[in-house]
């Protein structure tokens, strides 16, 4: 389906990543946004509050992030596409509702414009410290999808992708920006509406009798209905059977939880999205995501100039982690370098998949600014000296 032209501001714009994310949401068909002010994400909702009255959407500034993260789910069951926007402290408050969305299979988007933590940390400065929280932050076992843009253009493009993936898999999708990408101003091209592919919600259309809300009919993702359609649905965060009814038994849990995880896990390669640069002959690969992909470029170029065979792999989808790809990469290359604006999060996944086949070197950063490319360069050089034979 093509995007509704009402929400698409076709043309070339010179805007920051936060505003580009707002435009992406509007283009994706999002018509309900709930949020609570928090730096450095607030510009996303400010723009939406300005734009919605002109296109027939509704923004509500809720009393806190807890309210925002559940109001969007009410809106989804009311038939809207919806998102909320926050940064670290607010993201922490939203965790219970990420679990609720995963458990009830409510498609929605959580935008986290990351800032340095923990706690209040450095509110106006970048970090990538919420990556593990995005994956594991709610209690219990579940799965989500997380994307990481590295430019305002991608804040636009990938917000649309985030909505589409949330509909396709009926999961909450984490949109993991950071302060740097959020406040960076660049040219953003918004294509005409008929060039933007939108995945509409898949609604059940069969008979009302015997309808079962969570009956996937042999597939991994059951179709939805919405409130008011006459199906008398029951939605609960309790362990539930295919009718959606609470059923507190191990047998029900055994049927439900693996499906919630497998619908993402078994589609890992389908969901995967990454960019390879000079990987073919690479002996050392720098694995990055988000803003770090840009600070790594001068380091990689310098090393290349000096004759080192360095490649660059940039993860756009960070969760589900591209296990199969990293495993095969680890059997081809001699070392992997992972710069992150944290003390080592995604590197743990790289190490797990490399499984000792090659050395994996973290280039940590406490956040507050971006890496000095020199630190990444030095890590490349030292990895070259210790690379696997």
């Amino acid at each position, binding site marked *: 389906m093509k995007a509704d032209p009402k929400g698409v501001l076709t043309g070339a714009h010179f805007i920051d990543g936060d505003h580009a994310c707002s435009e992406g949401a509007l283009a994706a068909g999002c018509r309900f946004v709930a949020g609570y002010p928090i730096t450095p994400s607030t510009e996303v909702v400010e723009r939406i509050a300005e734009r919605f009255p002109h296109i027939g959407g509704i923004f509500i500034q*809720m009393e806190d992030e807890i309210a925002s993260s*559940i109001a969007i789910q009410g809106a989804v069951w009311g038939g809207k596409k919806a998102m909320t926007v926050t940064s670290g402290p607010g993201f922490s408050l939203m965790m219970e509702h990420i679990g609720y969305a995963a458990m009830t299979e409510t498609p929605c988007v959580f935008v986290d414009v990351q800032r340095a933590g923990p706690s209040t940390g450095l509110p106006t400065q970048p970090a990538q410290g919420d990556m593990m929280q995005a994956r594991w932050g709610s209690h219990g076992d579940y799965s989500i999808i997380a994307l990481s843009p590295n430019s305002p253009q991608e804040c636009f493009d990938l917000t649309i992708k985030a909505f589409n993936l949330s509909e396709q898999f009926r999961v909450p999708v984490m949109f993991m920006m950071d302060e740097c990408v959020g406040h960076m101003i660049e040219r953003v091209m918004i294509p005409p509406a008929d060039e933007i592919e939108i995945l509409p919600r898949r609604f059940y259309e069969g008979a009302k009798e015997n309808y079962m809300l969570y009956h996937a009919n042999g597939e991994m993702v059951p179709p939805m209905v919405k409130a008011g359609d006459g199906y008398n649905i029951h939605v*609960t965060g309790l362990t539930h059977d295919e009718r959606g009814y609470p059923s507190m038994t191990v047998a029900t849990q055994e049927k439900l939880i693996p499906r919630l995880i497998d619908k993402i896990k078994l589609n890992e390669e389908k969901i995967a999205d990454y960019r390879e640069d000079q990987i073919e002959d690479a002996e050392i690969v720098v694995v990055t995501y988000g803003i770090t992909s840009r600070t790594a470029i001068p380091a990689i170029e310098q090393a290349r100039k000096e004759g080192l065979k360095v490649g660059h792999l940039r993860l756009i989808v960070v969760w589900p982690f591209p296990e199969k790809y990293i495993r095969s990469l680890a059997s081809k290359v001699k070392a992997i370098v992972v710069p992150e604006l944290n003390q080592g999060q995604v590197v743990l996944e790289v190490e797990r998949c490399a499984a000792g086949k090659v050395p994996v070197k973290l280039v940590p950063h406490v956040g507050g600014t971006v890496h000095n490319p020199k630190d990444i360069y030095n890590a490349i050089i030292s990895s070259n000296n210790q690379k696997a034979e």
Partner: protein
Amino acid sequence: MPEELYEIETEVPGNTVEEFLRMERMPHIWCPGCGIGTSVNCFAHALETSGLDLQKVSVVSGIGCTGRVAGYVNLDSFHTTHGRAIPFATGLKLANPNLKVVVYSGDGDLTAIGGNHFIHACRRNLDMTVILINNFTYGMTGGQVAPTTPLTATATTTPYGNFEQSFNLPYLAESCGAVYVARWTTYHVRHLTKAIKEALAKKGFSFIEVLSPCPTLYSRRNKIGDGLDQMIYYQESSEIKHGADTKTVGLDFQGKIVVGKFVDIERPTYLDAMNDYYSKRLGDKFVHYNG
């Protein structure tokens, strides 16, 4: 017996509530003598005579004994997280203003962990009906103190009695902006049924506090008898005072209970206010929002 009981013309018919319930989920989890089921019965009767299109009625609950109501009503129903029924209902209602949204939950859920949402929903005058079952305690977790537990009453977490001032909920709701505020007990089934019907017909934030016995925990721990004894207490100690100043309707341990309809006023709902304001402010550029 209060005079007015005879003035209510609504006759409660026989057991016709089955079609409003998910009978395949019976028996329910509520204890014998618990008042929650009585309130659901009143809710079903109110729906029956409300003239509402039941397909368009959604019930949203939080967590707790009353939180389970959503699981038993044969309507679109949402059992959300602890304290968050109101913000979920906010999203649901604003996404589709044609829905009649009823929040049905307990005192702990709506006024302790969910208290912030409660006051803001009143302030915004969101178009929803909130039925709050007040049993003065946390039932599901075993009888802990709540923001509604009267002074001196015992709970597992106040083993020597409660020394915290409790909420006067009708006063809280009114001062925050609710347009319909009533209180009844599960003894007052006809009044309660009528009040729910009125609340459902009311545009804006309507709030009904329902005092309800919890014989298993609150009554037992406080040695005030079983469910029937609580009904006798409700009967003997209730005074119907429509239009009473909500400031004066606070509750004491086993003291006098003022019941009635306290507030019934008109004020623009959140959506009406938004549409009116933006139409004036933005003129033709504003796209009127109706879901």
